[in-house]
C-alpha cells in the first residue's frame, strides 16, 4: 500500500511544529522497522500542489497542531465534503482532497491527526504538555502504519474530536 504521512506547521512557533515533529519521529521509527511503501513529507502548510502529491497515494495521513478543545489528539477522516477553507494561500486538508478529486480524479483515503498544542510563541521546541500528546499520538499511529488495512473503511479505528 502506498502511504503518505504529511506533517505541517511552523516549528519556529513552538507547538505549531507538532505535526512535523511527529513525522520526523515516525520516519526514524519506520527505518528501524524496515517499513516499505511509506513516504514522509513536511511543510509549513498545505498548499495546492499537495493535491498532486496525494493523487498517487492510497492512504494519506496529515498531522497538524491543534488549538481545538480536545484532550490530547484526535484522528478523523477527511472527505472533502465539509466546509472547504480557501481564505489564505494555505489550504485545509479537505480542500486538498477536493482539489485532488477534481483535478486528478483520484480519491485516496485521507485522515487528519489533530495534536493538541498550547504554546505558539517565536521559539523552537515543543512544550512539555504538548510532548505528552505527541507521545500518545505516536503510540496510536504506529500500529496503524504496521497494518494500515485495518484503518481504511473502518470507522471504529477513528478517535473523533
Amino acid at each position, binding site marked *: 500500500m502506498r502511504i503518505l504521512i504529511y506533517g505541517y506547521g511552523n516549528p519556529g512557533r513552538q507547538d505549531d511544529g507538532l505535526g512535523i515533529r511527529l513525522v520526523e519521529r515516525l520516519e526514524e521509527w519506520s527505518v528501524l522497522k524496515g517499513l516499505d511503501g511509506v513516504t514522509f513529507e513536511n511543510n509549513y502548510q498545505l498548499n495546492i500542489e499537495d493535491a498532486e502529491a496525494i493523487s498517487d497515494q492510497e492512504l494519506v495521513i496529515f498531522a497538524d497542531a491543534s488549538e481545538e478543545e480536545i484532550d490530547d489528539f484526535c484522528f478523523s477522516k477527511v472527505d472533502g465534503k465539509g466546509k472547504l477553507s480557501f481564505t489564505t494561500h494555505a489550504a485545509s486538508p479537505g480542500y486538498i482532497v477536493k*482539489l485532488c478529486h*477534481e483535478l486528478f480524479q483520484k480519491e485516496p483515503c485521507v485522515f487528519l491527526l*489533530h495534536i493538541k498544542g498550547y504554546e505558539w510563541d517565536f521559539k523552537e521546541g515543543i512544550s512539555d504538555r504538548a510532548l505528552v500528546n505527541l507521545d500518545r499520538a505516536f503510540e496510536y499511529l504506529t500500529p496503524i502504519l504496521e497494518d494500515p488495512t485495518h484503518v481504511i473503511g473502518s470507522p471504529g479505528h477513528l478517535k473523533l474530536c
Partner: protein
Amino acid sequence: MAQKITIEPVTRVEGHGKVTIHLDDNNNVAESRFHIVEFRGFERFVQGRPYWEAPVLVQRLCGICPVSHHLAAAKAIDVLVGAGTGEGLTPTGEKMRRLMHYGQMFQSHALHFFHLVSPDLLFGIDADPAIRNVIGVALEHKDLAVQGVMMRKFGQEIIRATAGKKIHGTGAIPGGINKHLSPEDKESFLNGPDPLNITKMLDWSQSVLEFFKDYYQKNQSFIDDFAAFPSNHLSLVRKDGAMDLYHGVLRAVDSEGNKILDDVDYQDYEQYIEEEVRSWSYMKFPYLKSLGKEKGWYRVGPLARLNTCDFIPSPLAQAEFEQYKAVTHGKPNNHCLHYHYARLIELLHSAEMMEELLNDPDLMEGELVVKGTKVKKGIGLLEAPRGTLFHHYEINEDDQLTKANLIVSTTNNNEPMNRSVNCVAHSWMDGKQEITEPMMNAVEVAIRAYDPCLSCATHALGKMPLDISLFDADGKLLDRKWDSIE
C-alpha cells in the same frame, strides 16, 4: 444614525485582514480602513541572538514567503560580514541565490493568479461565491487549475534544490551559499518529463499572459477603471535601469514618471524613507521623507516595478513589457488591476531567468562563500513577490543582534491598499442601505490585487481565522462571531 460595517477576514489574501467602512447618516461612505495584524514582537525577539542565525530565524515570521525573508536577511548579513552588498559574492553564491529567488517569485505569482485571482476573472466578481473559487475553476477550467498546481510545484522544487529543504531552509549563509546545484536537479529542471520542465513552464507562462490579455481586451473598462488612482512607485532597479528582482538601487517615480529617488544605495534607506504610526492599525505607513506623510506614500510590487524600470533583461518579458507600456503611452501605470498584468509579465521573466541560470555552469562549480571584515550594521533589500522587502540589522562586539527593523512588502503597500478600499467603497456602497456579497468581494478584489501577506505564521487548527465584529457608531461591540477552518 451613522453605521460601521466590519468585513473580517478578507478572503483569498495571505493571513487575516479586517475592513471597516463607516457610513454617514445618508448611507454614504464617510471613511474606510483596512486593518492588518503585523509581525508584532519579532524585531524585539531577535535581539541578543547571534547574527548568523538571522536568515533562519526570520523564516519563523511567515510560512508563506520564507524564501524572501531568508534571502533579504542573508543579504543584510553579507554586509555585516564584509561580503559586500549583493555584488561581492562569488558568481556561484549569487547565482544560486538568484535561482532560489526566481523559483520563489515564479511559484508565488503562479499561485496568486491561477488560484486566487482567476475565479474573479472567469466567473465575475459578483458571481455566486459557491462557484467563484478555485474548485469552480477546477470544474469548469481544469487545464488552468492544473497549470497553476504544476507551476507552483516546479517553483517549490527549485526552492528545494537551492535552499536545501522546505522547512527552515539553510541555503543562503553569511557571504554566500552552502551548496552547488546537483547535476540530477539541473537535468530534471531542464529536461524532465512534462510538465515539470522549464520549457513547459515558459510555454505556460506565455499562455497565461495571452489569457489575461484576451480578457483585458474584452473587459478593458473594468480592468482600467477599478480602483484606479495616481500614486508614487518604488522598487529596486539594476544600476542600468533594468528590472532586477534580487539586487539593485532604490528608485522611486511619481505618477507621471518623474524620479523622486534617483537610484540611491539602499544602505542609506533611512535617509529617504520614514514610517508613520497610526493608532488604528498595527501596521506602519511608510513614506518618502522628501515628500512628507501626505504625499510621500508609494506603491510597491509588480505594478511599481514595471513603472520604475526602464527595461526587462529577458527577451520574451521585454516584448510583453513594450506592449504593456503602450497601454499607458509609456507613462506609469496607475490602474490597480494592472497589478495582475504586471505580475504575469514578471512570471514570464522569472521563467526566463530560471532557464538562463539553469544553463549557467557557475551553479555547478566554483567557490561558494566569500569573507571580509565585519562591520556593525547591515541592510538587505530585495524585491519579494509582493514588493520591496527591507531587513536592517545591527550587532555588538559579541556578535549579538542589537537592532532589527523589517519593512515588509505589505507594509509598504499599506496606504495604497487603504486608498484602493476607499475607491471601491465609494463606487459600490455610496447610497446603499444594504451591503451585499458582491460589494464585499469588490473590496476584497481591490486588496487582492496587491497580494498582501498578512500571515502570522501560526495556522494551527481552530486558530480562529474568522473573527467578525460589529460595532455601533459609538464604538460599542454589538456582536462577535468566530469560525474555524476544517
